[in-house]
């Protein structure tokens, strides 16, 4: 008898494991448009190819966005779409119930009993949902598609129906198995769950968020192997392999662009890295100021620019440097005097033109960031043992000797970490600054990799440049990760400590 019970438990445990995996799998599939079972219509007036089951269920609006036209012009019966949407909602609810059931299944027998009921409801709902979608598919069959034109509006049997059909059938079967198994068991009085699972379940919703927003985009790398236009699909027909990778080197125009952009990126990053010690110098000099209120004042107001956006920096830049900005107004106050010095007001302002673009960008970046970057060094200086300075004073060391032999060596470890990090980020300058400051004259010398990817993929995305910009972005990401690990290894070797 006991043996029988043990095997019985093993079967139910195994069913639960499978059920959990299936549920997790169906939750993930919810977000993939490729397996959306609700996409029963294709073509211009069909259901969007980028619509996932999740979106179809939560937003009727986006489900019928394009179909609405067919409804209005060709009398496509709208109630079918309603059925479709409701079926999607039911399917989603079924998955939600299954998730809840699986969560409960981690507890004691009382939990498991409730869980098995929830799983059962979930399984039933999932099956109903899939059946509902199939029903709306069958109903659509009667519609006269020829009247619209096959390319514009066509019936489609989505593979998602099979996928979710199988998933829901198996889920239902397994939940029946566990429901029967637990129906007979004696339950405890209270719900109880091991704390390790309780903690895990509290974290579970966030796992989903992290997955959707940080891991799911990686799936988009596949675009780099296809000929893709917005609104199109990825299929065997437009698979182009490494075409876009080779185009980077073989197409003259592209290669020239990429080289120019790389030059800008590396050039500006290098200037930034070469002057990264400025922040440390800033901090050291600031701590040499012994007037407390003045030091505080400087520290407060040099940090403000760090907290305003690049758009606002640009607004300030316009106010000062544009043709009717402060500089020109100031020169006009005493034109004769400035003329003697050889300075005249530039009629077009000082922000246009492509001379010294890199240096100008560096200057803006430094103006915005140096006060903030100095804070970590200031904190580092206040962490240095004061006795060292006292001892040095007794030994007759001057100001600069103390800086050279005490302050700088104390700050070098921090500096090295930040330096390694900035070397690892050599390809990522961000795009905000360069986007707001670029104009027709200087855009060629300002375009950095991030901005180039944006311009290519989103601003001009309709021209079919999405795959190419994905290739560039992907390469950039991979190189950045490699650089980061290199930096970390170097740090480990030299300092015996990793940076993250």
């Amino acid at each position, binding site marked *: 008898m006991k043996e029988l019970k043990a095997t019985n438990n093993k079967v139910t445990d195994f069913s639960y494991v499978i059920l959990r995996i299936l549920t997790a799998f169906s939750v993930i599939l919810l*977000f993939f448009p490729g397996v959306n079972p609700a996409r029963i219509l294709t073509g211009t007036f069909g259901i969007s190819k*980028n*619509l*996932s089951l*999740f*979106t179809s269920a939560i937003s009727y609006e*986006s489900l019928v966005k394009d179909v609405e036209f067919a409804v209005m012009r060709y009398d496509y019966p709208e109630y079918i779409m309603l059925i479709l949407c409701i079926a999607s909602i039911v399917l989603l609810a079924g998955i939600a119930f299954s998730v809840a059931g699986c969560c409960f299944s981690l507890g004691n027998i009382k939990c498991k009993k409730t869980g098995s009921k929830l799983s059962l409801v979930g399984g039933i709902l999932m099956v109903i949902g899939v059946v509902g979608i199939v029903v709306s598919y069958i109903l659509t069959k009667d519609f006269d598609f020829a009247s619209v034109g096959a390319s514009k509006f066509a019936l489609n049997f989505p593979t998602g129906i099979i996928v979710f059909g199988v998933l829901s059938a198996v889920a239902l079967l397994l939940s029946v198995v566990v429901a029967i198994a637990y129906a007979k068991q004696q339950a405890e009085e209270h719900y109880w769950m091991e*704390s*390790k699972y*309780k*903690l*895990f379940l*509290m*974290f579970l919703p*966030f796992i989903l*968020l*992290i997955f959707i*927003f*940080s891991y799911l*985009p*990686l*799936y*988009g790398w596949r*675009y780099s192997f296809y000929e893709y236009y917005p609104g199109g699909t990825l299929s065997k027909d437009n698979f182009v392999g490494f075409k876009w990778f080779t185009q980077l080197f073989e197409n003259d125009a592209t290669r020239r662009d990429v080289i120019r952009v790389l030059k800008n990126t590396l050039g500006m990053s290098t200037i930034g890295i070469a002057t990264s010690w400025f922040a440390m110098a800033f901090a050291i000099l*600031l701590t040499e*100021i012994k007037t407390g209120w003045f030091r505080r*004042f400087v520290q*407060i*107001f*040099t940090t*403000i620019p760090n*907290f305003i*956006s690049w*758009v*606002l920096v*640009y*607004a300030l830049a*316009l*106010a*000062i440097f544009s043709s009717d900005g*402060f500089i*020109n*107004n100031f020169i*006009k106050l005493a034109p004769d005097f400035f003329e003697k010095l050889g300075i005249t007001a530039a009629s077009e302002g000082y922000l246009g033109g492509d001379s010294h673009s890199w240096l100008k960008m560096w200057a803006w970046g430094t*103006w915005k960031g140096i006060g903030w970057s100095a804070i*970590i060094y200031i*904190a580092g200086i206040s962490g240095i043992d004061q006795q060292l300075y006292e001892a040095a004073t007794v030994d007759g060391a001057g100001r600069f000797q103390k800086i050279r032999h005490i302050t700088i060596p104390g700050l070098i470890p*921090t500096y090295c970490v930040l330096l390694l990090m900035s070397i690892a980020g050599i390809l990522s300058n961000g795009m905000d600054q360069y986007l707001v400051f670029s104009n027709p004259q200087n855009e060629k010398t300002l375009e950095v990799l*991030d901005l180039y*990817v*944006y311009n290519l*993929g*989103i601003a001009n995305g309709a021209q079919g440049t*999405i795959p190419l910009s*994905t290739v560039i*972005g992907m390469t950039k*990401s991979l190189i*950045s*990760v490699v650089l980061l690990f290199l930096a970390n290894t170097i740090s480990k070797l030299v300092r015996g400590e990793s940076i*993250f």
Partner: protein
Amino acid sequence: MAKTKQEKLDLKAEKEYAKKHKKKYALKPGDVVFNIVNYGFFGIFTLSCLFPFYYLFINTVSNNSFVAKGMVNFYPRGFTVSNYIALKNVSDLGSSLIVSVGRTVLGTVLMVLASALIGYLMTKQKMWKRKFWYRFLVITMYFNAGTIPWYLNMVMLGLTDNFMAYIIPGIVAPYNIILVKTYVESIPAELEESAFIDGAGYFTIFKNIIFPLCKPILATIAIFGAVGHWNSFTDSLMLMQNSTNLFTLQHRLWIYLNSASNLQALMANPTGGSAAAAALQNAMNAKVIKYTISMVSIIPILMVYPFMMRYFEKGIMLGAVKG
């Protein structure tokens, strides 16, 4: 920390010593030069950080005819607040203000709550596969798929032209979570244990003990998060291409800044009679309206700045503590 009596005495003695040996402590000429140069440098640099804000401000509160002639350079002339009042006639500014405030408040609150909870959970060694999930979370700080896959992913999720696109992706912020986790680890474990013995569950402990104790670090991440939300501009640029009413204030400002001089065209048709409209159109000048909108987007930052001052050093120092 209160100074002990001994310390006070020491200080006094030191001062007296300094007084007596004033000559010995007098500055050398080299030091004087160094100090002049040093003070001068920081004075000028601080001025360069302050002056643009001041310049913008005095231009927005001056009579527009003086501004148009370029006569407002160091102090306001013909003080008026009419420019700020006139902003209500600038089309789309209201909606973008609501969007920016909305995303800042909602996004920050959700981010802080989530960071607090996750930070707490991540300190719990008992959690099932804690190490794996922690890595799963932290690793996302060091790589990203790139702009285009991110954008296509947002399209796929239906988060384009949708206000939720500003909120949901920002809820889980790994860096802030690490900050909270580090902070929670510094809270004595006994506090939690005693509550546990009294029968409190994890969530109760989190709500009643951990959350209140974490307030300093939560204030820090809240301020940084709010500033980030307020300043963000590229997400609006990329994701809201077809819905101008969802542009953030920064995006709107960027459009205004780039619209050269024909800002009048952006003005909504004033409904208050044509005479009033004409008067307004005369009074408003493109430059001033740009300045005024800029000022409006700077003011909230300047308002939270004093709070930021209290927390930011703490924040950046914690950031130096590795996760």
